[in-house]
C-alpha cells in the first residue's frame, strides 16, 4: 500500500488511523484502554467519567436484540479522582486518549474536564447524550448543549468534542449550536433510546427498563446523522454507530466522518476489529487510487 496515507488530524490530534474506540466500551481501566490501543486503535475514548463514583444500574445491563445490543449500564464509573491513574496507564498505549465526561450541571462538566486535562487527556468528549440516565439529557436541547460546551471550553485548553444523541427532533440544530459554542468536533451518534420486554415473564429485561440500542441495527440512523451534520458544520465529525466491517467505516467516511468509533463490534468480532478495519480502509483507498484518507471524507455529498 505504497503512498496511501490513512492518518488523520482531528482538531489538532494526529491519529495514526481513523478507527477510534467508542466511549464506554472497555474504558473503565487503564490497562483495558491500553490493550485497545495496542490492538491498533487510532485513538481511545474512556468510559464516561463523572464527578463522583457511580455503581450504575443492577443487572441485566445488556441484552441482545436483532442485529444490535441494548444496554443500560447507568454510567458506572469510579469518579474522576480515582480515574486519573487509569488515564495515565491508558496513555502508555501511545495514542491520543480522549476523556469522555458527564455531569449533572455545566459546572460539574467543567470541573471533571479540567481534572482530566491535568491528568493528561488529549481531548475531552462531552457525553451529553446517554439515553437512559437522569444526568445527561442535556444533549436533547441545543441551548443546554452549547452552555456546557462554552463552560468546559473556558476551563481547558485541549480540544473539546461533543457526543450527540440521535434521540432528538433535529440533530443538526444541536450540532450547529455546539459548533457555535466552540466545540472542536462532533461525535455522533450515541445509542437510540429503546427497550425489550421478555415475553415469557412479561417483564422488561433491563433492570432500568429503558436502555440504549447500539450495533449494526442503528448504522443507517448514524450514517444519516453524519451525513446531515457534516453538510452543515465546519468542524470534523466523528462517526459512530454499528460500524462492524471496514465497509461500514468507509460508508461513514463517505458520508462525511473524518474518523469513526467502534463499540459493539468488539463484542461481535473481537479486538482484532481495529486492525481489520484499518487495513480494510487502507486497501480500499489504495485500490481506488486515493492517496489520502481526506479525499474520501464526505465524498457522497457531491452526488
Amino acid at each position, binding site marked *: 500500500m505504497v503512498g496511501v496515507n490513512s492518518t488523520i488530524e482531528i482538531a489538532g490530534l494526529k491519529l495514526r488511523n481513523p478507527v477510534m474506540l467508542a466511549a464506554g466500551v472497555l474504558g473503565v481501566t487503564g490497562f483495558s484502554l491500553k490493550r485497545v490501543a495496542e490492538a491498533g486503535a487510532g485513538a481511545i475514548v474512556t468510559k464516561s467519567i463523572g464527578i463522583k463514583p457511580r455503581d450504575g444500574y443492577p*443487572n441485566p445491563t445488556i441484552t441482545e436484540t436483532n442485529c444490535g445490543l441494548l444496554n443500560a449500564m447507568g454510567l458506572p464509573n469510579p469518579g474522576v479522582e480515582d480515574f486519573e491513574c487509569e488515564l495515565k496507564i491508558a496513555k502508555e498505549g501511545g495514542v491520543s486518549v480522549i476523556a469522555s465526561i458527564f455531569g449533572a450541571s455545566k459546572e460539574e462538566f467543567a470541573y471533571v474536564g479540567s481534572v482530566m486535562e491535568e491528568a493528561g487527556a488529549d481531548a475531552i468528549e462531552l457525553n451529553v447524550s446517554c439515553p437512559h440516565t437522569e444526568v445527561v439529557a442535556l444533549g436533547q436541547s441545543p441551548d443546554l448543549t452549547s452552555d456546557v460546551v462554552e463552560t468546559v471550553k473556558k476551563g481547558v485548553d485541549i480540544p473539546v468534542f461533543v457526543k450527540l444523541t440521535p434521540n432528538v427532533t433535529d440533530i443538526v440544530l444541536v450540532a450547529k449550536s455546539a459548533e457555535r459554542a466552540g466545540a472542536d468536533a462532533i461525535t455522533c451518534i450515541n445509542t437510540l433510546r429503546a427497550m425489550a420486554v421478555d415475553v415469557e415473564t412479561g417483564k422488561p429485561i433491563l433492570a432500568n427498563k429503558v436502555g440504549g440500542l447500539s450495533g449494526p441495527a442503528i448504522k443507517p440512523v448514524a450514517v444519516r446523522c453524519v451525513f446531515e451534520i457534516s453538510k452543515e458544520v465546519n468542524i470534523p465529525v466523528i462517526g459512530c454507530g454499528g460500524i462492524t466491517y471496514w465497509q461500514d467505516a468507509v460508508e461513514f467516511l463517505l458520508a462525511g466522518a473524518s474518523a469513526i468509533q467502534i463499540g459493539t463490534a468488539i463484542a461481535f468480532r473481537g479486538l482484532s476489529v481495529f486492525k481489520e478495519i484499518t487495513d480494510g480502509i487502507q486497501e480500499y483507498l489504495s485500490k481506488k487510487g486515493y492517496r489520502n484518507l481526506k479525499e474520501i471524507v464526505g465524498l457522497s455529498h457531491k452526488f
Partner: protein
Amino acid sequence: MPFNRSNHSKFLNPPILHDKLRIVKIKEIKSETPTIKSFTFVDEKCTETSPGQYVMVWIPGIDEIPMSLLRELNKNLMIAVKSIGGASAALHELKKGDVLGIRGPYGHGFTSITGNIMIVGGGIGIAPLVPLTKNLANPPTKITFILGATTHEELLFLDKIRMELSKNDGRIIVATEDGSFGFKGLATDPIEQLLKKQKFDMIFTCGPEKMMKKMFQLAEQYKTPIQASLERIMRCSIGLCGSCMIGKFRVCKDGPVFSSEQLREVKNEFGTFKRDFSGIKVKI
C-alpha cells in the same frame, strides 16, 4: 476500479451473536449443602459447554449473575448456587417450575490435559471442577482432587467427585476449616507436601481468590503449570463493557480460566485487589 473482495457478500452479513436471552424452566432444585442449592434445567444452546464456561442467569425482576455450568444426564444442565446476597438468595427462594433467563455459554473454560493432574477446589469453587473432572477422568490420567470447605456439611459435590474418580485410581483429599471431616485446615495446607513428592503436569483450581493465589505461588515455586478460574464483576459477559478487568484481561471473555502465563501478567492484581461496581479498587 471497483473493489471486490472475494468473500465480499459473506463478509457483509450482519453479525449476530445469536445469544438472546432464553427462558428456561427449573426442573429440579436440590439442597446440596446448607448454603448451596442446585438447579436443573434444559437449554439447547448450552449442551455443548466446556468445563469452566458459565452462563448469565437472570432472576426475572431481580438481577443477573454469572454461574458455572455443570452438564448432567439427558441434556440436563445444572448450576450450583451459594446464597450470599441479593440475587443468589432470591434464587434460593425459587420453586420447581419457576423460570430463569439464560444467556451464554460464555468464556474460555479449562484446557484439558492428560497426565498427573491436581485439582484444588474451595467452597462453591468446586462446582466448575466437577465437569472438568468428568472430562479428565480417563486412564492414564491420574487425578488428585483436594477439596476444601468450612465444615463437613458444606463440602460440595463430594459424591459426584468420588463417582468420577472411581473410574480410575484418583485420590481425594478433603480439608475442613473446623476439622469436621478430613484434614483440619485449608485446602492448600496438604498441597506443598504433594508438590514436593510428585511431579504434576497441571494444577486446576477454583475457589476463593486468596486460595487460588496461594496455589499459583506454589505452582510457580514447583514449576508446575496451573489453570485458575477467576471472578470479577460481570455485566455484559461478551467482552464489551470492561467491568470485569484484571490487568489487561476481560475475565468474562479472555477468562474466567487463566493460564500461568496470563496470571504472571496480572500478578499485581491477582489475589490483591478487584474492582467494585463503580470500578474502584477494593482489596481482596
